[in-house]
């Protein structure tokens, strides 16, 4: 079972990385132009989300009706309902960072083999941010 998880993840990750590369999400200039509806707007990236949700939403509808996935005995989805301050503040900060540099986590990681120093800095800072955030959450 565990080894099958790894195989699926490797395939799914590759598909995801290929999709990101094709989509334009890995180019900070395109991302910033997408987040610029009040300026020189390039709305192309809306199609990335539309395409992804267009596939995922109908598929999830049927998949989540099953008792279990193929290689596990449960679906690991959160049942949290609360729209709390952590969610809002976290999402707000994420958006600020995304607009500031033009990369969200997936595209930043998919850029690793481009061997640009800035990508390594971004990825390392992202990991540090995650761990600091978790430490603070555990405390308060």
């Amino acid at each position: 079972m565990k080894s099958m998880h790894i195989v699926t993840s490797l395939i799914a990750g590759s598909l995801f990385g290929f999709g990101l590369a094709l989509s334009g999400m890995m180019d900070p200039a395109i991302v910033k132009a997408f987040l610029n509806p009040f300026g020189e707007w390039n709305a192309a990236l809306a199609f990335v989300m539309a395409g992804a949700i267009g596939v995922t939403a109908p598929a999830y509808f049927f998949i989540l009706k099953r008792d279990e996935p193929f290689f596990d005995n449960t679906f690991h989805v959160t049942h949290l309902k609360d729209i709390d301050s952590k969610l809002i503040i976290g999402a707000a900060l994420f958006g600020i960072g995304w607009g500031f540099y033009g990369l969200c986590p997936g595209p930043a990681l998919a850029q690793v083999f481009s061997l640009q120093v800035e990508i390594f800095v971004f990825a390392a800072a992202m990991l540090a941010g995650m761990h600091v955030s978790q430490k603070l959450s555990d405390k308060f």
Partner: protein
Amino acid sequence: MKNFFTTDITNALIGGLLIGSSAVLMMLFNGRVAGISGILYQASHLKLESLWHLAFIFGLFIGAGFFFEFNQVNYPRVTATWPYALIGGFIVGFGTRLGGGCTSGHGVCGISRFSPRSIVATLVFMSTGILTVTIMNFI
């Protein structure tokens, strides 16, 4: 009529379909959400149980690498210098951990199962992203 699509929308759409297919595989076979920030955080513990997380991230590297190699094009260059990367990366990491997801986990997977939290999170990060870019263009 102004052109609001200055880069290829077919590529954007097909890229999105592939990302969606990846999310479907992860749920159907492993019962997991294809949320990159969460997967990265778990992977960073480098434990035996986090091997699949590492495999997914390695997949991201090779999937993108294959695309650029195959098409004989260069990776998009980042233009902002490393201090910007340091600040941007930290805020993205901090925010995604606190908010429990990013563009993939909330924006694709969460919205696809109509999670109210994910819908709210996506509206919030889209708004602050737009706000940030708009303000930065004024400075």
